[in-house]
């Protein structure tokens, strides 16, 4: 077991040494791999933020339940109980007094609100469903409409559908590009390893003559591919962080114009780890294909 681990450790060290031995080549490979990983990853992040932003600004992924005017705390409590039983996602209660206060604070509505002799607004619940597919939202709205004490249910289903179709289309496009870029990453690693195998033909031949197994020959190349891919993933993260940092100012100004406190999200630690892991896996795959084809001819 000790020999097994020391063999892997030696192969990993050898791969790291070879990466460090030719810094310019390594840097150029990392730029290509980093860009290939960063573009689809940035696409996914952008779509995720668009979805969250659209939901927040337009209310397309919110359902508003307006209670019967004149209803009291008892009706509100019953709806609260029903929501708790249904668990559709998150919800909050907006009392009619709070709604009027918001109306007064809304630009251009202060005069209208001041002219009211009484508060005409009903109590309401704002539901943010967990499942935001259009059909799920409509089903949920239908259930809410059947509840007593609910006077009106508001869901902009047309906008919700348009957004959903747009996001699906955009995700598909990003997925296609991700596939193409993944293929590119595998091809880059394949070629890098092919050149290394040719450069190390003598070492491979001598190693075979002294009892090296196929696994022993392949191991440093596989580590090289995985390590290069993982470093490419880290480079991609730095590209995304750099792009996010440079776009933060203009994006903030744009969001202010929409009057929202929306904060765009960067990659989470799990997503960042996944990006590095995908880079390593694709690098390993490119190396695996290359070593399966090339070293057979030696000795």
């Amino acid at each position, binding site marked *: 077991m000790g020999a097994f681990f020391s063999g892997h450790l030696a192969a990993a060290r050898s791969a790291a040494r070879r990466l460090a031995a030719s810094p310019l080549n390594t840097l150029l490979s990392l730029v290509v791999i980093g860009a290939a990983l960063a573009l689809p990853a940035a696409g996914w992040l952008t779509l995720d933020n668009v979805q969250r932003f659209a939901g927040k600004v337009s209310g397309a992924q919110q359902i508003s339940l307006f209670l019967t005017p004149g209803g009291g705390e008892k009706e509100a409590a019953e709806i609260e109980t029903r929501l708790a039983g249904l668990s559709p996602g998150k919800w909050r209660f907006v009392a009619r007094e709070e709604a009027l206060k918001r109306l007064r604070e809304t630009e251009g509505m202060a005069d209208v609100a001041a002219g009211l002799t009484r508060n005409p607004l009903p109590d309401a619940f704002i539901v943010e469903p967990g499942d935001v597919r259009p059909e799920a939202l409509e089903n949920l709205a239908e259930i809410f409409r059947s509840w007593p004490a609910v006077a009106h249910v508001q869901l902009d289903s047309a906008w919700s559908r348009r957004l959903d179709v747009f996001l699906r289309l955009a995700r598909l496009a990003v997925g296609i590009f991700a596939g193409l870029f993944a293929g590119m990453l595998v091809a880059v690693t394949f070629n890098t390893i092919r050149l290394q195998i040719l450069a190390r033909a003598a070492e491979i031949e001598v190693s*075979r003559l002294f*009892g090296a*197994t196929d696994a022993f020959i392949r191991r440093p190349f596989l580590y090289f591919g995985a390590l290069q891919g993982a470093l490419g993933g880290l480079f991609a993260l730095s590209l995304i962080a750099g792009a996010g940092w440079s776009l933060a100012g203009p994006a903030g100004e744009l969001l202010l114009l929409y009057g929202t406190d929306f904060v765009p999200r960067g990659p989470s630690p799990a997503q960042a780890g996944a990006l590095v892991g995908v880079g390593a896996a694709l690098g390993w795959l490119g190396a695996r294909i290359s070593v399966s084809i090339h070293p057979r001819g030696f000795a």
Partner: protein
Amino acid sequence: MISASAVTKRYPQGIEALKDLSFEIGDGELVFITGHSGAGKSTLFHLLAAIEKPTSGSIVVDGQNLAALRRGAIPYLRRKLGLIFQDQKLLFDRSVLDNVLLPLSIAGLPPREAMRRAHAALDKVGLLDRERAWPIALSGGEQQRLAIARAVVNRPSLLLADEPTANLDRESAGQILDLFRSFHQVGVTLVIITHDPQWMTRGARMLRLARGRLVDA
């Protein structure tokens, strides 16, 4: 240790390099295989080192029939052999020490033990003080001694050498043969392929090849 029975090696172009060869080499023997250029010496070396397979017949080395050996089993057999090549096959982008460490890292020895054995092998061939040197900086005789150190570092019971004194001056060739004698004295089986029978030593056996056949055993 080695048993060859009716071994024939025929290449695709129809060239018959070895014909119906049979011989036995016992444990601890020192055997010289001689013959003129084209006699089939190097082909026999390749068969004994499991680099090539015979077209027919069987070669049993250390209890394993090389003609029927699976591809996956060859590396493990080679770890039991010490191979010395006519062109030495040194790695010129690695130091003297790293060349000797290669078979040990392949065998999976712990680094400390590997280093101890590599130093002992270099000491045996008189190259301990050149461990940091690059092979290109060594003389022809020193390069051959380095190849021997690499071949014996795994403590093989069978040492196969293909023309180990070719291209060496008389003094260097003498040093190499002294080394081989010292390995023979501690019980290592030695098969030395040479075109020059003048290096035959006392107590050694000679197998002479001519046109792929054994003519004198």
